[in-house]
């Protein structure tokens, strides 16, 4: 019998057909229209959305004692509280933002624009994570001298091509929404605000320098490293030899080191600072777990799409199987990180930490919280555990879809409770924005995929990947 050894990889090139372009643009247009209609709907019905008196009372009970002891009488996060310690001077807060007109009783409560901004932040962050994790995965493969995924390298590179646009959108949204979404920006911009010791102690990180210089610096650095790795990969196609491989390995090693610090800092600045009084040392790892598992799932979706279109014949079931194993492994990793964060906060029961989960276990968020754990951990864990599941395109695609939706909900839970509060919901606005972002992402990625050959044919490990075998 003997086994067939592939000696040469036959090159192919992805063609970004007019039909695929139409689908991507159509997704964007439909999503944008849906989001626009949804936003108008939210605007006109804002007062009647989500006010459930009993739940509000619960939330206040849960957080009130904490606020009074920790922050004095400062106007803290949940904005819908009906208490009388709101200061007259808060009316003058951030007059630059248009939502001020909506404020009725001196609170800077969420307005329909808050929900729009929060929703934009959610989707720009979520899709940006796909690109970030793909870049990290390329770097890890170089540093670990791993060969199995080389046949998929161009897919990862295509994913990272969203880094340019995604970073720009993310930066624009973070800066544009800073007065609306970030309580600490409101606090530091308002000299008359009552002193908040916790926010003052965080002023070394949460300040305008971080916002306007550090975040762009990190985003641009990553883009530059991405350009270097991509250029190496493209020029490797033309000339053989190890020089490009060695250069990429060095840059990858640097990137991983740099990434560990900068990704943590970005996750604190962009997401954790929404709940500015709260902190968790697990938070950046948690964001990384979301990033990596969703990036792998997107990669799986692209592989299956290309295979269905008749490309990537050379990518064997074995490579796809290992990608499925990675998805499985990082679902478990997410579960582990989630539990680590939850368990410590639940056990110690300190008010300044439990406030985070208290907000997420009230009202409509409770269901989403359960759905999140089910879709991100339990369901993929039980399904992807089976070997046959990891070799079946249908099951893999379903699992990837479940993971992607689950982590969308996960990111939603990171952002919404601290910004929109009980006025949040998943409606036309949220779904439309997500669809529009999916259209943009699809266009960018497929466009990048069509720009280069499908396989990095002169990569030293390309034959290892082509002949990859996971064993019995």
């Amino acid at each position, binding site marked *: *019998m*003997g*086994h067939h050894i592939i000696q040469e990889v036959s090159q192919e090139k992805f063609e970004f057909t007019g039909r695929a372009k139409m689908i991507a643009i159509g997704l964007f247009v439909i999503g944008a229209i849906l989001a626009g209609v949804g936003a108008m709907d939210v605007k006109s019905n804002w007062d009647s959305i989500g006010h459930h008196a009993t739940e509000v009372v619960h939330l206040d009970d849960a957080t009130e004692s904490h606020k009074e002891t920790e922050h004095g009488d400062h106007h803290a996060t949940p904005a819908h509280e009906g208490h009388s310690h709101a200061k007259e001077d808060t009316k003058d807060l951030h007059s630059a933002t248009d939502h001020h007109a909506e404020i009725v009783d001196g609170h800077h409560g969420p307005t329909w624009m808050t929900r729009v901004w929060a929703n934009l932040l959610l989707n720009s962050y979520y899709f940006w994570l796909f690109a970030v994790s793909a870049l990290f995965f390329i770097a890890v493969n170089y540093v670990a001298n791993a060969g199995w995924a080389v046949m998929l390298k161009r897919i990862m590179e295509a994913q990272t091509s969203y880094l340019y646009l995604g970073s720009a959108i993310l930066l624009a949204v973070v800066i544009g929404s800073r007065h609306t979404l970030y309580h600490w920006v409101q606090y530091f911009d308002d000299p008359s605000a009552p002193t908040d010791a916790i926010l003052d102690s965080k002023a070394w990180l949460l300040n305008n320098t971080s916002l306007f210089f550090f975040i762009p610096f990190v985003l641009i650095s990553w883009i530059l490293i991405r350009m270097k790795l991509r250029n190496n990969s493209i020029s490797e196609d033309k000339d053989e030899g190890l020089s490009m491989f060695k250069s990429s390995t060095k840059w990858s090693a640097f990137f991983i080191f740099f990434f560990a610090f900068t990704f943590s800092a970005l996750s604190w600045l962009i997401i954790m600072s929404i709940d500015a009084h709260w902190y968790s040392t697990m938070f950046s790892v948690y964001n990384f777990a979301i990033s990596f598992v969703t990036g792998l799932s997107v990669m799986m979706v692209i592989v299956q799409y290309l295979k269905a279109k008749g490309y990537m014949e050379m990518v064997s079931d074995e490579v796809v199987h290992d990608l499925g194993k990675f998805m499985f492994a990082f679902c478990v990793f997410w579960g582990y990180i989630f*539990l680590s964060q*939850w*368990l410590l906060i*639940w*056990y*110690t*029961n300190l008010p300044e930490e439990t406030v985070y989960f208290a907000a997420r276990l009230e009202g409509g968020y409770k269901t989403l919280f359960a759905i999140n754990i089910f879709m991100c951990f339990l369901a993929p864990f039980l399904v992807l*555990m089976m*070997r046959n599941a990891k070799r079946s395109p249908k099951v893999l695609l379903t699992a990837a879809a479940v993971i992607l939706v689950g982590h969308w909900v996960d990111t939603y839970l990171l952002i919404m409770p601290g910004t929109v509060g009980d006025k949040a919901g998943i409606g036309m606005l949220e779904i439309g924005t997500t669809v529009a972002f999916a259209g943009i992402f699809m266009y960018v990625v497929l466009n990048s995929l069509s720009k280069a050959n499908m396989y990095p044919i002169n990569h030293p490990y390309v034959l290892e990947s082509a002949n990859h*075998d996971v*064993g*019995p």
Partner: protein
Amino acid sequence: MIDKSILLDDKTFTVGIFDDSDKLLNAVGTLKKKGVKIFDCYTPFPVHHLDKALGYDRTNISIGAFLCGLLGSLTGFTLAYSMNVVDWPMIIGGKPQDISVFTSFIPVIFELTILFTAFGMVILFFARTRMIHGIKEDLLSRRQTDDHMVLAIDNGETQDLSASEIQSLLTSEGAIEVDASRTSFNTSLTDEEELAKQLMTT
């Protein structure tokens, strides 16, 4: 649980001994193509694709692993629940003493799942491969545990090819030694003569 069909007692074999795993793999392929029924191969290390070449199905031991893990999970839950809720409820950190403290059971459940799976797999693996304490070790060649690979064909099996055809096939496939009637010997009765004989022939 122990698969009797893998026992070598009371059988004589035609063996081809190889010193190269690729040659063994090719020989298995060639013999299978000619319709020769191969009893088994004995190698000192796992030879890739040999299981496929011999036509073996995938092992079901992973189902055993899952069941062991499930048993471990249930044991962990039962243990934690019966201790903390039923048998000896204690107030820890002001927490209630009911199922709502499920979170604190998870480490116990996790650890016992790992423990049961690990021990279960070791026991299952040894049982399945017949490596049980006190068992007689069957060898067709001493150096099958060192650097030689043995391809064994049961002489009791009716073959399409004649014995001499099979032997010449083995030789042409690069076997360094072909023996038409080899019986297994038992290493637990260390027989110096047997050892000397084996070493001389190989």
